[in-house]
């Protein structure tokens, strides 16, 4: 059974090698596209296996847990792997339109596939140190992708991104070292027991906070998010989209995993902190967005604000809240990547992303305007789009435990999100172009427009599908939340002990 778990990681790596060899030929981009399509297929196979059998695990090289490296997939991991593959495919198509040939020959597609492999590996691993390694794979690929193409802006953004992420990695790594010192194991399923049995629970809480800070930087929560708005508006739109969709979510996923599986000894302390962090993240993110006047900068701040909702789902720590958190995670990857895609196409048409310099997009491209409205309103939580259900679950979870203030902040942030979205709508689409010219879709070559339009339409269709037909997705999130709250299956599958 182990190949089911290995393939979603192996396929992108193999694609990366081949794409690198073919980087100077047009074939390179098609290899990347084919590899991404294949990734989606193997991820779907993994998903089917998880749906049929519940939690599945594989011991690498037959070194049994807790000694070897374990790959494990429960519902949450499986859905994250599938959504990563979907985003990867959408990005691979989008890249055909945007990425110039000289960037391709620098090995763009190879780096991109390594990034996808790193993200997938982080979702699938069951070993803490291995998680660190996947984080690094992902980071080194993201560093290179961020600065590829050069220019002062990108280098400046890259230096800040690299610096803060390196610090967070070191905090995470020293947390791993100390946790190993206390418990003597690094297998996440084994850690659950070992941490519960540890004598010095105070030390465990300290280590838990180190993990929270380490993952918090990756997830861009308040007050650790400064690297994100400093860097996400500079690279190619293709890169922005895949970063916005996936990278911060790896931090959220790791937090969800560690704070449901391992660090549950002092929920009253750790998760209480997380509630306040989440609320402040939501609020500062949305306020930061209100102060910006650049398409991508507004979207970057909204990533931060939305991350707050996901960590809030974890922090409330009830079945309904976690379910909302999982649903939010999936919905947000699709919507946010799509908004960055739209921003890229808007730049192709209108020539800039500075909202003061563009306009009239509605008149010249009603289709793009419609395709912006779908993810934008989904982000703000309009029914019947996917974001409505995500927000509904979180708010309902807050109301269920009589946390009125939390519900109030969630709704308020939703309202302020609409403000930013209407600002983009009004300035980029509605008002006439300041230079009096109509942005013409003809300016971009048909090949470019087509490659960029396909993923936007595809992801928008998914948003609508989840919105109108949420039942199976909600049920899936419910099972995922149950597995997170009661990881008996996870632990027994990994360790191979029958209860």
């Amino acid at each position, binding site marked *: 059974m182990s190949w089911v778990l290995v393939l979603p990681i192996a396929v992108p790596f193999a694609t990366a090698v081949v794409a690198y060899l073919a980087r100077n030929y047009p074939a390179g981009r098609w290899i990347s596209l084919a590899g991404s399509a294949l990734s989606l297929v193997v991820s779907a196979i993994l998903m089917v296996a998880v749906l049929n059998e519940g939690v599945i695990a594989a011991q690498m090289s037959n070194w049994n847990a807790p000694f070897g490296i374990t790959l494990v997939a429960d519902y949450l991991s499986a859905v994250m792997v599938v959504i990563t593959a979907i985003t990867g495919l959408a990005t691979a198509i989008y890249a055909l339109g945007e990425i110039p040939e000289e960037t391709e020959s620098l090995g763009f597609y190879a780096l991109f596939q390594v990034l996808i492999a790193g993200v997938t590996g982080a979702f699938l691993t069951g070993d803490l140190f291995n998680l660190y390694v996947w984080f690094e794979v992902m980071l080194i690929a993201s*560093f290179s992708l961020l600065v590829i193409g050069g220019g002062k802006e990108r280098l400046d953004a890259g230096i800040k991104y690299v610096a803060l992420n390196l610090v967070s990695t*070191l905090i995470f790594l*020293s947390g791993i070292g100390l946790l*190993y010192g206390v418990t003597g194991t690094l297998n996440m399923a084994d850690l659950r027991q070992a941490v519960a049995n540890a004598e010095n629970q105070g030390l465990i809480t300290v280590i838990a906070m180190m993990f929270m800070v380490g993952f918090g930087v990756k997830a861009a929560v308040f007050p650790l998010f400064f690297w994100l708005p400093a860097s996400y508006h500079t690279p190619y739109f293709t890169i922005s989209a895949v970063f916005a969709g996936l990278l911060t979510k790896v931090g959220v996923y790791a937090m969800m995993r560690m704070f449901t599986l391992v660090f549950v000894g002092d929920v009253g302390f750790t998760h209480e902190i997380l509630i306040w962090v989440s609320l402040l993240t939501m609020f500062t993110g949305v306020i930061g967005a209100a102060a910006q006047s650049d398409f991508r900068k507004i979207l970057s701040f909204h990533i931060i604000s939305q991350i707050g909702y996901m960590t809030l789902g974890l922090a409330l720590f009830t079945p309904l809240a976690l379910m909302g958190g999982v649903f939010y995670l999936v919905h947000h990857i699709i919507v946010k990547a799509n908004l960055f895609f739209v921003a890229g196409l808007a730049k192709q048409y209108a020539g800039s992303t500075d909202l003061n310099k563009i306009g009239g997009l509605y008149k010249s491209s009603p289709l793009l305007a419609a395709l912006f409205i779908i993810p934008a309103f989904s982000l703000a939580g309009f029914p019947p789009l996917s974001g409505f259900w995500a927000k509904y679950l979180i708010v309902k979870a807050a109301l269920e435990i009589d946390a009125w203030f939390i519900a109030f902040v969630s709704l308020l942030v939703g309202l302020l999100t609409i403000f930013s979205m209407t600002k983009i709508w009004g300035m980029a689409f509605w008002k006439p172009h300041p230079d009096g010219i109509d942005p013409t879709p003809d300016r971009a070559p048909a090949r470019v427009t087509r490659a960029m339009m396909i993923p936007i339409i595809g992801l928008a269709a998914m948003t609508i599908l989840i919105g109108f037909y949420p039942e199976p997705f909600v049920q899936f999130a419910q099972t995922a939340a149950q597995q997170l709250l009661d990881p008996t299956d996870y632990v027994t599958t990994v360790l191979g002990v029958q209860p």
Partner: protein
Amino acid sequence: MEALTAIVIGVLTAASVYLMLARNFMRFLFGMILLSNAVNLTIFASGRMTKGAPALVPYGEDGPLGVVGNALPQALVLTAIVIGFGLLAFTLALVFEGYRRMNSVDTDEMRFAEPKEDTTK
């Protein structure tokens, strides 16, 4: 031995924080190097420091004979060193390229991605 290592780790961390608070990015980077070494020592010390033979398995045996040192932290530290080295090499190259283009390693002067006038609008 543990106490001595702990003090060394503490001194390294303190020095690295001092360096990382500097505006000069090169100093920040040196701080990072010290910090990553402090972290590696932390992992090493976490595996308990005992006097023991190298964890080698004699030919024909199933496991090591006698008392051996804990091999796992060494493997972890080795991995962390390799990864850290790669990241450091990349970061140095990045800073050098940044210095060539921006003519500065002062982080206060690096305002190309987020220009100052943006905040006053």
